């Protein structure tokens, strides 16, 4: 075995492994990437019902209620970004930090009827932390400009949408 053939073997092995790693990565990316969407985006162009997305926004105050579907408890609440609201159904125990009027990120799929079925619900980690996606969305929709101080109080979010819905 000369140095050259050995190098050839190593190069072949490297190419095979790196190639298959790249192929696997691309394949996994194409089917498993999860996009973040705000309720208004979901309303505007709903994704197909086999596509998992992350839905983020504020839990509308007073919207949380429970439905009992044959012994399994289902939590239903509305998530809003100040423009539109989407009803979320989640089977399971809501995280300890879940509160009405605070930000939340839900992982799941949009149903044919426009509702959202969540497989996972993530609430923010402490009293000051807001999921980055939600904060970005607030800025994008022009509800909050970080140059002018803290994010608007969560309770005002609901009234923004409620007013819109009412008016």
């Amino acid at each position: 075995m000369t140095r050259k053939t050995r190098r050839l073997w190593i190069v072949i092995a490297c190419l095979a492994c790196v190639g298959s790693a790249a192929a696997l990565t691309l394949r996994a990316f194409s089917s498993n990437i999860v996009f973040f969407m705000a309720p208004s985006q979901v309303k505007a162009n709903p994704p197909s019902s086999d596509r998992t997305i992350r839905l983020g926004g504020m839990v509308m105050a007073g919207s949380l209620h429970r439905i009992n579907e044959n012994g399994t408890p289902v939590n239903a609440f509305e998530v809003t970004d100040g423009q539109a609201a989407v009803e979320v159904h989640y089977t399971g125990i809501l995280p300890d930090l879940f509160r009405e009027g605070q930000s939340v990120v839900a992982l799941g799929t949009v149903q044919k009827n426009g509702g959202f079925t969540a497989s996972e619900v993530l609430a923010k980690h402490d009293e000051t932390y807001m999921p980055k996606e939600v904060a970005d969305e607030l800025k994008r929709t022009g509800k909050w400009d970080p140059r002018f101080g803290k994010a608007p109080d969560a309770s005002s979010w609901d009234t923004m949408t409620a007013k819109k819905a009412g008016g």
Partner: protein
Amino acid sequence: MFGPEQGHFALALACVLALVQFAVPLWGANRRDARLVGLAPYLAVSQLIALGYSFLCLVMCAVSDDFSVQNVAANSAVSKPLLYKITGVWGNHEGSVLLWTLILAVCGGAVSLFGRNLPDILRGRVLAILGGVSAGFQMFCLLTSDPFDRVFPAPMDGQGMNPLLQDPGLAFHPPILYTGYVGFAVPFAFAVAALIEGRVDAAWGRWVRPWAVAAWCFLTCGIALGSWWSYYVLGWGGYWFWDPVENASLIPWLTGTALVHSAIVVEKREGLKIWTVLLAIATFSFSLSGTFLVRSGILNSVHAFANDPARGVFILALLAIVIGGSLALFAWRAPSLTSTGLFSPISREGSLVLNNILLCSICAVVVTGTMYPPFMQLLAGRTISVGKPFFDAATIPLTLPLLLAMGVGTALPWKRAQLARTFSHLYAAAGIAAIGLVLCFWKLSGVLPIACGALAIWVIAASASDVLRRIGIGHTSAQGVWERMKHLPRSSWGAALAHIGAGITVLGLCGMSQAQHAIVEVHIGETRSLAGDDWTLLDVHDYIGPNYKAMQADIAIRHNGKLVTILHPEKRDFTTQSQTTTEVAIHTNFITDLYGVIGDRHGTGKDTTYVLRLHRNPLAPWMWLGGLVMAIGGAFSLSDRRMRIGAPKRAAARNMARA
């Protein structure tokens, strides 16, 4: 005596000592001045003493409730138990940076004390590099995240600590994990020193390996402990979230594992030198960027920059200097390192090369999955995320050949192997693996879990049979076996143990892929069944704890009418922080975990219902048990006489004297 000002002063002193430790030995080594180089160990030890004193001061501030210190006021409270006052010191950014540099200083001290047999110049350069890194991070600590900052006026009581973090598992997790991260600084320093010197030989491999193995053991323990914590504290029933913080610890583990293996080739066959040096640099670079970019959240949110630009810019500059500098040095000097040792593709070296390629491919996948979302956010402005489905689909197929090769590798001889002869040693193991495959078909569902399970059994059987063959079971007398057992190097025992541990972990992961759970809403006295077990909610009662109110459930689990256990999951309400935590109840028989969580209470009077989440997790404890076995294997091979730095030299000297 142990006030914040003294601590601050000691930190500044340590920083200056570290700077001197960086500059003087490097300059001395360049001028071949033995006296200047000889200063390095003394400087390293004095830096350690100064930094240790500084850390002790911070601990004393926390213990004595000195709320004039900003860090203590923000993270501690009078009512906090003493243990958490101490461990809370490293539960926040400033304290954890101080702990990080302290561990780095401990590494420097260890090199000074245990490295007495190293050539003076090499030891001087290694300590200089460690001192340089240390100085950088102590400056970071002093200038941008001073743990001894004061507040005026001092508050009467602190803000307390997140109750989620008040857990013995989490209290000791950071020091162990950080020791793993920082430990890779020593192989890094050895690599940079070797590049400056322009020489890597078998002796270098022998010096580097113990440090790499020790760091790897700590990192393995740290990852296992973190995963266990998220399993029993967070109460979501899973064990690995694939979030950036977890990946930040997995990435250096993968390259570190590759390093531990490739250093063997340097030591035994003087091959793969350039590659090993690169791995040493890469592993520490990943550790650094993992701790400081990902854990601090800089990468995940641009806000971290906006909130504190000085901190972000400083850390980026520091990373650029350490990582960029070492890679530039590598590009400049690496071509002067030449490998000798020829080998054929089918040989121990060949299998170690394959191990390295596969581990690095997996690492590349994990890095891609972790970095892609933030880069997309930055470049295209789209918020995306990748999670468990992505990582499972992309990494598991690459683990399969790795497991297959693990079983064969240790049985192959160096240089050139005959496949037929090697396989004749592995018949028994292959038979056991075949039985395992049948067992997996019966117990598991899904192609990947079955393949992984069978291969894990193959790894365990092959590793065990390799050791048994070496000690001569079956073809020597009992006396002979005993003699061979005594003479088999501890590193062989260690390698077999570590491989068996990896097999156990993979079996645990396969078992967990079959976990079942149910979310139910029940009245008191109601029974639900899950996978053959009947879960009955017997009672729920409230009680008041030291700083919380709790709701505790009694859940009886019966199997075929026979009582298995009564679980007591709790939900705790911490009034001061207005936070609730779930206390999971787990019953384990080391084969299956029964895992119960209590959720909300609904309704009143007779109509009161409770939401429960019930899990049945087969083989769950094996995942962490395997990690522990891996770390024990590493520790075992550390105790090998050959691994002790300079031991062969001493033995040779003794033999000479005897002759």
